[in-house]
């Protein structure tokens, strides 16, 4: 069903979706991108605009140049992270083994609902999901491995005029959407739905700057969380609404990400960390939608 959905898209649209998934890491995972690539390849062949690569010659070059010593992995070294490898913890001495104590601590935090800002590297267990980060990446992961895969799905592009409308259409009433700086206007909104994940991605533009808001509802046991590229700056944790929100930077961009129940949310754009904290607070101050 996912393939049929992609087959209805134009070449440009497919290339955009692949780009969003590769560059942003926040759209589709490898399984779905593979389907997109196959559909795109077929469309380009039919339209006679497929790029021609001599795969046989590439294979010969691979065997001659890249295969020797391949047991050591990437020629770029350990900096390149493989799929399904958990990111390494940033600071030594930290252990996630104290699951029960972590859960008790988190529940305590939720009960007190203190809004504060701290900066430290730790992961803790929240609804079975742990936050982990290194100098270069941030991600949520579920402690128990899941082997579920994408199957079937649909995409709605440009159907809704706001994320709030889209959330309402899907019966979602949790406070998830922050207020954005005034001059930004919605330029694109895509809803994607598969057996395991319902995703909303919206771009707000104040040319040339763009803020991207991503909200994903994960199915039970799903571990298809996004990985965010970050620079070596500190991850700031800002608490609001009883939830810890992680704020980090990647060069000129600031990224906010958090988990609210089964929802994984992120906001990315060129704004300051203090703007980020205001946006976070606004999520829980908004009165209805």
């Amino acid at each position, binding site marked *: 069903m996912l393939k049929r959905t992609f087959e209805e898209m134009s070449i440009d649209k497919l290339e955009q979706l692949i780009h969003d998934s590769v560059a942003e890491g926040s759209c589709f995972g490898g*399984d779905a991108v593979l389907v997109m*690539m196959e559909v795109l390849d077929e469309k380009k062949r039919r339209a006679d605009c497929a790029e021609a690569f001599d*795969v046989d010659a590439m294979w010969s070059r*691979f065997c001659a140049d890249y295969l020797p010593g391949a047991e050591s992995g990437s020629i*770029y070294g350990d900096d390149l992270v493989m799929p399904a490898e958990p990111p390494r913890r940033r600071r030594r001495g930290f252990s996630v083994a104290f699951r029960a104590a972590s859960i008790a601590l988190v529940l305590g935090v939720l009960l007190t609902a203190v809004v504060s800002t701290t900066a430290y590297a730790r992961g803790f267990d929240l609804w079975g999901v742990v936050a982990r980060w290194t100098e270069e990446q941030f991600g949520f992961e579920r402690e128990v491995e899941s082997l579920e895969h994408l199957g079937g799905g649909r995409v709605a592009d440009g159907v809704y005029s706001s994320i709030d409308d889209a959330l309402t259409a899907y019966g979602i009433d949790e406070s998830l959407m922050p207020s954005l700086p005034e001059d930004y206007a919605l330029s694109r909104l895509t809803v994607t739905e598969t057996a395991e994940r319902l995703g909303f991605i919206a771009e707000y533009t104040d040319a040339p700057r763009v803020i991207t808001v991503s909200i994903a509802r994960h199915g039970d046991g799903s571990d298809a969380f996004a990985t965010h590229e970050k620079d070596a700056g500190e991850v700031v944790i800002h608490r609001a609404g009883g939830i810890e929100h992680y704020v980090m930077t990647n060069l000129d961009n600031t990224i906010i990400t958090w988990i609210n129940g089964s929802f994984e949310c992120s906001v990315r754009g060129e704004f300051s960390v203090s703007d980020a904290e205001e946006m976070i607070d606004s999520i829980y101050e908004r009165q209805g939608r």
Partner: protein
Amino acid sequence: MNDAERSFVEQLYMRLAGMMMATALHELGDEQLAEEAVQDTFRILCSKVAEVMKHPNPAGWVVTTLMNTIRKIPQQRGRTESMLVRFRSEQLTRASSAASAEDELDPDVKYADLADDDDYILLKRFSAAQCTIVEFAKELGISVDACGKRLQRARKKLRKYFEENA
């Protein structure tokens, strides 16, 4: 790799490499770099072939690895350049401080080991050359594997220098 593993890799290669090249080229904008991203992805596959053969969707695994590789290559290059610029800037600052100081302290004593290090010099040349690792390896007449390892070693030494001199 044994024959079965090699056959497994080759089948995936023949099925996916063309599409992966199209995607990598679209993202990286350079055909040589795109091919390096694809080749490095399959090199990573070879290093983990036994476990990927048991994966429910090996082709999906390969595409996920490609996506990670495409993201990481330009980022790593950018970081390397930043480190080199920073190191060079610190060298120049120290050298000019020493030149104006009455005591003839040798400012490069602390950094001489790294500044004269063969791997570091190689990394500087690679960064200046703005080419792929395979192109650079051929220019030097060494294997891609050896070239990659020397560059990794140099980056580690730079990172260690900054940690020790923070």
